[in-house]
């Protein structure tokens, strides 16, 4: 909202220091997003008379113009064609600096030298008009050579650009801003009467004001009927006759311009002025274009179509999404029921005020905020009026606003202007002032302050509240909240709302500060610590963490082996981001490709994040979705392959102290086979949580399927898909000691006696996993075994049997003695026998 400082001064004697006022506004929660100095930068602009207008050879969009600004002819080049010889125009001579810092220099266009610039209203920041040069013929007393500032009577001003919070409709007007500001600064606040206002801003140029109502009663000139007082609990109309539609007074037009609205005519401008000043939208109709004549306010029929002022045909009366919309729209119709506008949102073209209008019916009403919010949201139609009504206008401010309108129109409405006696008024239940009791103890407990009841009343009073502290300093304060503050709720919430008002008026910066302390320690959970450790381990292995999108296309999801139906975003930003990811693969492959395209594809990347799937069994409560936190790591560095992923997994498992996990390999076919290399991938399993239970899947490890890698464009220089090691862990399972078994907490004593090693090499058929042989060895070696480790794998023609040779080193130790050769020999024999028996293996 654009707020001119000069306008605020109507209500309270504010000082000149714009920066200080801006700081105070900020501190009140009326955030200043910009401060514009207006009327500055016009000092060099002078009035000039056009003496010659001539075409320029070879240019049809610019003309050579000679003007006289009192000191001889000045030649300029101008692109506008809305003026001719003899007209008075503003000239910015060479050296002038226009508002916004635009410096005028000598320029040459099409061989013609331009010694200045003729300016539009917008270039001078005087209006929004940019259709042509500002023509000054009608400005009284304008003569060539005069300063523009002097001729137009422009006072330098400051315009604050304020962001007003959604819960403060009262502050969304000049009076409301001034009220808050005056309360803080301890200045008297009052809304001036119209004649005093005009006297202050326009000096002696005041008219006699609005004559007392006379002539036929309003009720004889028009009718008003409201059939749905649930949507529109109060509707008033006043009738003005003998109206001359013309331009607004200059000061009024200028204020609208400064506030960012375009002046149109004295009737529309008066309506807009009242809205900006008091926050109450009103709507003037040409009474002679309303059938009846009069208005009918009713609920729209389902599917009813209305053409709004912007020429758009809109279908009404049917519910839309959100806001508990029931599809109830308030229609303003003429007395015969033909729609002329959408109540509180937008008028229609048929009854617009035009130059020929002589009789005006002014609507000033209270619409139920929620109803306006629903209609505006569904129709995507947010207007100055709807934005105010949906936040809540003051039901008790309607009459004052309508009266102000009439008084403002009377300034220029002509000598025949007459206000018809009486008000057409349909009133049902509108919000009433609210009583809230503030207990000082409760308020101080919220704010950490020590305000007395008297201080509280003193801080609330200037905001327009009636706050009465009757008893002692700790006794309750009875507060009556005016209807222009719909943000204040009844008790018990109301006390918190009023605590904020007290704090705001007092100043947040002045409130005490204290560093709280409590006996409970702060800490990370075991899971959070384990997650950090896993990520650190991957960094230690040269992998860098990526953050990829959670939104994927269906094709990406299918390529990643996920099973449809996927969770769908009903309102995605773009079609390619319609589904929630069910895997980290597409994101990390995309990140690898992004880097490969920049010749930096030799990378290890990992990501930790949520993946989503529809719940197979919907939970009793909460969304029917399963969210899993996963860690995905892609090993695409030089020489990386499945081994890199396996090594990484073993490091992670070691770092987390995992115990008893196994890697099980079997060809991955079907969906999984699209993602994982069928013969170079395996599943990681933790032992069952409970005896006899199922094993817990921790994730997968291995290599990505070549087809998937190739489709992602990650190919080696020979054109073949690159080998990319892949580790994908379910952190929900992995990080939880209840699902992924950890080494026991108790320390195992270290033996003081020497250990003995034996090496055993077996020829083992290819289909027997080395891990199975290792497990057999560990099992058969007995209690004396300290460790078993695969140290050599050999494949070649020298083997007597089919398969490959696996060489293990077993280390034995006892805690109470040095082992004898016999003891070790016995263990060795047991190991050999077990492996040969279980795995069709032969000792080499």
């Amino acid at each position, binding site marked *: 909202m654009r707020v001119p400082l000069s306008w605020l001064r109507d209500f309270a004697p504010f000082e000149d220091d714009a920066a200080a006022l801006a700081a105070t506004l900020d501190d009140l929660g009326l955030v200043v997003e910009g401060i514009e100095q207006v009327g500055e930068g016009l000092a060099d602009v002078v009035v000039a008379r056009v003496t010659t207008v001539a075409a320029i050879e070879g240019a049809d969009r610019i003309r050579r113009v000679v003007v006289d600004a009192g000191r001889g002819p000045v030649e300029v080049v101008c692109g506008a064609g809305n003026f001719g010889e003899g007209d008075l125009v503003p000239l910015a001579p060479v050296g002038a600096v226009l508002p916004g810092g635009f410096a005028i220099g000598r320029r040459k266009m099409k061989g013609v030298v331009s010694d200045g610039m003729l300016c539009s209203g917008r270039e001078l920041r005087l209006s929004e008009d940019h259709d042509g040069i500002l023509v000054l013929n009608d400005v009284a007393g304008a003569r060539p050579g005069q300063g523009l500032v002097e001729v137009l009577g422009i006072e330098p001003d400051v315009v604050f650009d304020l962001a007003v919070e959604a819960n403060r409709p009262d502050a969304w007007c000049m009076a409301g801003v001034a009220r808050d500001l005056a309360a803080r600064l301890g200045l008297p606040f009052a809304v001036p009467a119209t004649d005093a206002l005009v006297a202050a801003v326009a000096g002696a140029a005041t008219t006699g004001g609005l004559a007392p109502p006379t002539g036929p009663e309003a009720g004889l000139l028009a009718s008003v009927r409201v059939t749905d007082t649930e949507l529109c609990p109060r509707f008033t109309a006043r009738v003005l006759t003998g109206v001359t539609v013309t331009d607004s007074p200059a000061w009024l037009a200028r204020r609208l311009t400064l506030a960012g609205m375009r002046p149109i005519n004295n009737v529309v401008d008066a309506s807009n002025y009242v809205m900006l000043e008091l926050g109450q939208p009103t709507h003037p109709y040409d009474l002679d274009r309303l059938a009846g004549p009069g208005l009918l306010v009713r609920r729209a029929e389902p599917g009813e179509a209305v053409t709004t002022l912007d020429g758009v045909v809109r279908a009404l009366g049917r519910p839309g999404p959100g806001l508990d919309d029931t599809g109830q729209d308030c229609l303003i119709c003429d007395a015969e029921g033909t729609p002329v506008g959408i109540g509180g949102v937008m008028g229609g073209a048929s009854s617009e005020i035009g130059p020929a209008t002589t009789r005006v019916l002014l609507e000033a009403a209270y619409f139920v905020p929620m109803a306006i919010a629903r209609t505006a949201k569904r129709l995507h139609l947010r207007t100055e009026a709807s934005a105010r009504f949906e*936040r809540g206008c003051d039901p008790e401010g309607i009459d004052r606003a309508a009266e102000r309108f009439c008084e403002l129109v009377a300034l220029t409405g002509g000598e025949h202007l007459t206000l018809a006696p009486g008000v057409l008024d349909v009133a049902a239940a509108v919000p009433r002032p609210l009583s809230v009791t503030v207990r000082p103890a409760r308020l101080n407990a919220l704010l950490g302050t020590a305000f007395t009841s008297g201080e509280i009343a003193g801080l609330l009073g200037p905001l327009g509240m009636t706050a009465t502290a009757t008893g002692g300093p700790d006794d309750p304060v009875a507060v009556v909240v005016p209807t222009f503050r719909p943000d204040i709720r009844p008790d018990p919430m109301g006390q918190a709302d009023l605590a904020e008002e007290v704090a705001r008026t007092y100043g947040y910066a002045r409130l005490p500060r204290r560093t709280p302390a409590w006996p409970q320690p702060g800490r990370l959970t075991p899971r959070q610590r384990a997650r950090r450790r896993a990520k650190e381990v991957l960094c230690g292995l040269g992998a860098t963490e990526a*953050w990829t999108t959670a939104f994927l296309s269906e094709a990406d999801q299918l390529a990643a082996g996920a099973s449809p139906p996927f969770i769908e975003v009903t309102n995605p930003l773009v079609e390619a981001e319609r589904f929630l990811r069910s895997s980290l693969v597409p994101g990390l492959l995309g990140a690898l490709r992004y880097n490969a395209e920049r010749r930096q594809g030799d990378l290890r990347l990992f990501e930790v994040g949520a993946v989503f799937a529809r719940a197979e069994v919907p939970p009793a409560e909460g969304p029917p979705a399963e969210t899993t936190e996963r860690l995905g790591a892609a090993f695409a560095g030089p020489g990386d392959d499945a081994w890199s992923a396996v090594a990484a997994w073993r490091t992670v498992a070691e770092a987390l102290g995992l115990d008893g996990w196994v890697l099980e390999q079997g060809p991955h076919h079907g969906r999984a086979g699209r993602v994982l290399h069928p013969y170079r991938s395996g599943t990681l399993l933790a032992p069952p949580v409970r005896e006899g239970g199922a094993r817990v899947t921790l994730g997968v490890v291995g290599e990505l399927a070549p087809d998937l890698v190739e489709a992602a464009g990650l190919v080696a220089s020979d054109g073949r898909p690159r080998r990319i090691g892949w580790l994908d862990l379910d952190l929900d399972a992995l990080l939880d000691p209840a699902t992924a078994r950890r080494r026991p907490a108790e320390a195992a004593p270290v033996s003081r006696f020497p250990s003995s090693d034996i090496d055993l090499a077996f020829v083992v058929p290819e289909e027997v996993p080395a891990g199975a042989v290792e497990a057999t060895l560990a099992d058969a070696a007995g209690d004396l075994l300290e460790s078993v480790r695969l140290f050599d794998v050999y494949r070649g023609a020298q083997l007597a049997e089919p398969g490959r040779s696996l060489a293990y080193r077993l280390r034995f130790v006892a805690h109470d003695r040095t082992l004898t050769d016999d003891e070790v020999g016995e263990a060795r024999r047991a190991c050999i026998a077990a492996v040969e028996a279980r795995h069709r293996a032969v000792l080499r």
Partner: protein
Amino acid sequence: MSGPTDVAACVEEARRAIAAAGSTEELRRVTAEVSGKRSPLAEMSRELGALEPEARRQRGQHLQAARAVVEGLLEERAAALRFEERSRELAASRLDLTEFLPGSPAARAARGHLHLVSQTRDELEDVFVGMGFEVAEGPEIETDWYNFGALNIPPAHPARGMWDTFYLDLGEPETTLLRTHTSPVQIHLMERAVLDGALPIHAVMPGRCYRRDTPDARHLPVFHQVEGLVVDRGITFADLAGTIEVFTAAYFGPDIHARLRPAYFPFTEPSAEFEITCTLCRGTGCRTCSQTGWIELGGCGMVDPAVFAAVGVDAESWTGFAFGFGIDRCAQMRHQIADLRALVENDIRFLRQF
């Protein structure tokens, strides 16, 4: 045949031979020559027996002294040769450490980098843990109730427009969504604490959030927030302001301060926006802070009585405050990242800077 002179000559001869030995190997040979069993001095010792007792004693002393000198020379020379040889070995094993081959096996151990957002989140968590907060997490898919309703934003609340929401095709239309802020975790925490009788709560809640914003330099549709919630006896707005101030100085540095100004959030009352000293100009005013010296960081306030009512916390016995701000934005401010989109591009040249 021989007196002190021939002993001295022997020593001189030995000194020359020892000095001439150019390697440990050579010195071993020389050692045998000058002090071995067949060395002249050894010969002379053996001949002592043939002498008169007095002469034998004298000559014996001479020989002993001579042998001590030779041994000393040998030791000295051996040490010198060892040093020379080690030096040569070291020189021969010289590496040019700038010949580092990034693709070599050793290079594979090069350290990776945590994402800047992770690092920022970890650091923020650490600051708050140090201040006595626990760290809590919650789901990213939420129901309307947790994301809005319980936070005093009923379906028919115009303030819903403050959050552009991604809705999911789960359940009734517009009932399931991607959380637009971390605030629903507050609701989960309070519900659980009320159920378990486990109040008070002192927790921060970091996590990923979603808003239907078209990505630009300052907005990402997927972003990270950290939320704070304290529900305890005797908690006031003063504690909130103090907490924000302590956190700001701890994370951004001692010369960065916080200030609060009134704002509107449906789930807090009184509410405030908190600004911190501009980290770029340190408060003197620059383009980033629009010459104000302050930049907006987040929102905060006292937990609204309506929120307490929704989760069943007795607002007469307990008071609380909540705050929230963007993790990505903290990173952006601290590292002066012009465009937030760099955070999701995953360009390794960006990631490895942190």
